[in-house]
């Protein structure tokens, strides 16, 4: 890669070219239609067939480059068929269904256009069938099942309904991401006699999480669900929002952000060895061999855990720890001491002076990996509780602003598109006035669940305040963000809330901006632009997404 690269402008130019290319596709299609007409009159006209072959060949070779993957593949298949047809002698030639082909190409193009944003941006939907997590629901009550399918679908789950426990045994070829089971989903005597054994039998081939649902609110029902292999038991009538939120948490692909560890160790061989062990375990490791570069290294690597040699040249590990503890930003980073001489008094001293654990050399690799993992996990949990809003599980106001600033800083050093979205629940005051504040909280929580379900772990999602949300979408242009937020808006509008027996639905408005259209903007002014675009969405009739304009 040359250093002169500016991926930002490159991506933007690529986008422009792709837009120009999709305009050209219209001409390609009319050319194909003309050829189809000619071939209808004279199916074995070699000249038309050759032109058709050339047109399909060019489509097959170019469409994929601009992100029209399905279109390109479809064209490739057709191209091969034309080539075969050209090779056949005149008597064997079957007329080619070119008009049908064109329909198929247009359909493929539609698929590509709707997926284009998803290809560039793998939202959490881009993982299994059409990207949605697949849930199997075992429920005898078809009416209830239908309602659940519709509601959970709004939250971005793909639901497959099975009528009873027996149906679980039929499909050995596919597996769900989660099982949702009515604990009475069978007529069989075996279930009545010994529910736990019955379910253990039926579920033994499944490795995914299992949730039970049922109408009995009793200790026995809950205990049976637990013993049957269930993670939890939900009582009917089901609180769909709560259930969806719980399911999203369970399925959420495990936190794959690598742990950032820094090793402070002057023994080069040992440092390399430890680094190798931790990198092998999927962590991100930096090594520092000079005590005096501590602050720069902390700043660059921003570690979540430090492995600190107790004896460095000219300085002790405990002094290093004390220095770190004086800087607010790093006061909380866990420190694990490495020492070759074991001495309980020394250890106690070290732990008192700001260390969190103490490992003796030679260090057992498994112990090291597990210790690092668990400490970082603890640390992240703690940060989460400090930074997250309890109602929605999204970042709090200060944290989302911090995340935006951080992203902006990052792109100053290394250009990359990102989008800022301001999102607000329409007529929220009316919801509170009509259905009460508790119901208002349910609606806010539903937005939180939907957001966490829909966006990637690298995106930063925050509750800006009240019923207002802020998203910072990494590596995402405003066009893509607009599409994703629009999908979210449609899904949210489909969710039925039940307030005091009166079902109602809510809508969202949003404003979107990206840093590419406003390269000179500060983080603050991008946020303002998103806010203005939101204001415009509100003013032009609500329930819509607006892009920020100059």
């Amino acid at each position, binding site marked *: 890669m040359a250093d002169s690269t500016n991926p930002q402008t490159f991506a933007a130019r690529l986008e422009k070219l792709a837009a120009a290319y999709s305009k050209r596709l219209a001409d390609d299609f009319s050319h194909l239609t003309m050829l189809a007409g000619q071939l209808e009159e004279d199916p074995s006209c070699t000249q038309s067939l050759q032109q058709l072959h050339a047109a399909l060949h060019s489509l097959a070779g170019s*469409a994929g480059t601009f992100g029209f993957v399905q279109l390109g593949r479809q064209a490739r298949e057709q191209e091969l068929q034309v080539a075969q047809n050209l090779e056949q002698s005149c008597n064997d030639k079957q007329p080619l269904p070119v008009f049908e082909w064109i329909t198929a190409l247009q359909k493929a193009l539609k698929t590509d256009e709707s997926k284009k944003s998803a290809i560039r941006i793998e939202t959490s939907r881009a993982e299994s069938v059409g990207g949605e997590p697949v849930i199997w629901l075992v429920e005898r009550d078809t009416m209830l099942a239908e309602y659940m399918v519709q509601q959970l679908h709004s939250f971005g789950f793909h639901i497959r309904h099975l009528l009873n426990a027996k149906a679980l045994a039929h499909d050995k070829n596919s597996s769900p991401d989660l099982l949702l089971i009515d604990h009475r989903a069978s007529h069989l005597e075996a279930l009545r006699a010994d529910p736990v054994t019955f379910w253990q039998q039926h579920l033994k081939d499944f490795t995914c999480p299992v949730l039970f649902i049922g109408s009995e609110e009793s200790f026995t029902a809950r205990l049976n669900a637990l013993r049957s292999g269930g993670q939890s038991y939900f009582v009917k009538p089901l609180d769909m929002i709560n259930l969806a939120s719980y399911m999203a948490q369970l399925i959420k692909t495990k936190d794959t952000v690598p742990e950032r560890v820094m090793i402070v160790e002057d023994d080069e061989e040992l440092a390399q060895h430890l680094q190798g062990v931790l990198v092998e375990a999927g962590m991100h490791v930096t090594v520092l061999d000079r005590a005096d570069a501590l602050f720069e290294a902390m700043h660059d690597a921003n570690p979540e855990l430090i492995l600190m040699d107790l004896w460095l040249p000219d300085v002790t590990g405990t002094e290093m720890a004390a220095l770190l503890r004086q800087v607010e930003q790093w006061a909380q980073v866990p420190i694990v001491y490495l020492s070759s001489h074991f001495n309980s008094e020394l250890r106690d001293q070290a732990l008192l002076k700001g260390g969190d654990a103490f490992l003796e050399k030679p260090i057992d690799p498994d112990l090291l990996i597990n210790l690092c993992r668990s400490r970082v996990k603890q640390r992240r949990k703690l940060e989460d509780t400090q930074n997250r809003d309890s109602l929605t599980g999204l970042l709090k106001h200060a944290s989302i602003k911090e995340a935006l600033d951080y992203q902006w800083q990052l792109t100053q050093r290394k250009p990359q598109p990102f989008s800022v979205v301001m999102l607000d629940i329409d007529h929220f005051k009316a919801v509170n006035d009509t259905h009460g504040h508790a119901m208002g909280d349910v609606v806010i929580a539903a937005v939180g669940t939907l957001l966490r379900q829909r966006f990637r772990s690298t995106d930063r999602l925050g509750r800006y305040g009240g019923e207002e949300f802020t998203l910072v979408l990494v590596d995402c242009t405003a066009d893509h963000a607009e599409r994703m937020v629009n999908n979210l808006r449609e899904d949210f509008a489909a969710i039925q809330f039940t307030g005091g027996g009166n079902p109602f639905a809510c809508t969202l408005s949003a404003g979107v901006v990206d840093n590419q259209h406003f390269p000179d903007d500060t983080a603050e002014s991008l946020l303002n632009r998103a806010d203005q675009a939101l204001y415009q969405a509100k003013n032009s009739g609500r329930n819509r997404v607006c892009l920020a304009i100059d």
Partner: protein
Amino acid sequence: MDTLERVMYVEDDDDIRLVACMALEDVGGLTVKACSSGEQALRDVEAFAPQMFLLDVMMPGMDGPSTLLELSRQGYITEATAVAFMTAKVHPEEIARYKKLGATDVIAKPFDPMTLADDVRSIWKAFNGRLN
């Protein structure tokens, strides 16, 4: 080995030519001479003196292989010149046929604009590794 700088690229499809040039120049930092036909390549090759050729296989008029043959015949392909054909994913025997014609390697179409320059450079590297 010399660093790859000058690439002559022959492709009849305007859009693809544009995006490939952008990929090779912006991302790869290469100097590219783009030609829309084999005939144009033959006219411009002398002045540009490319280290490597990228040739689309199927083109109206002169196709990729005949462009390569003509370039060879006129002495523009030396043992230090790399040649890559750009074509649909093809069978190994098809690739063997292209290599017989004098191609170093094949780049599959549709290509990914983000990785095209890297692909070209790695072909160049492999080609030079073979010389030593």
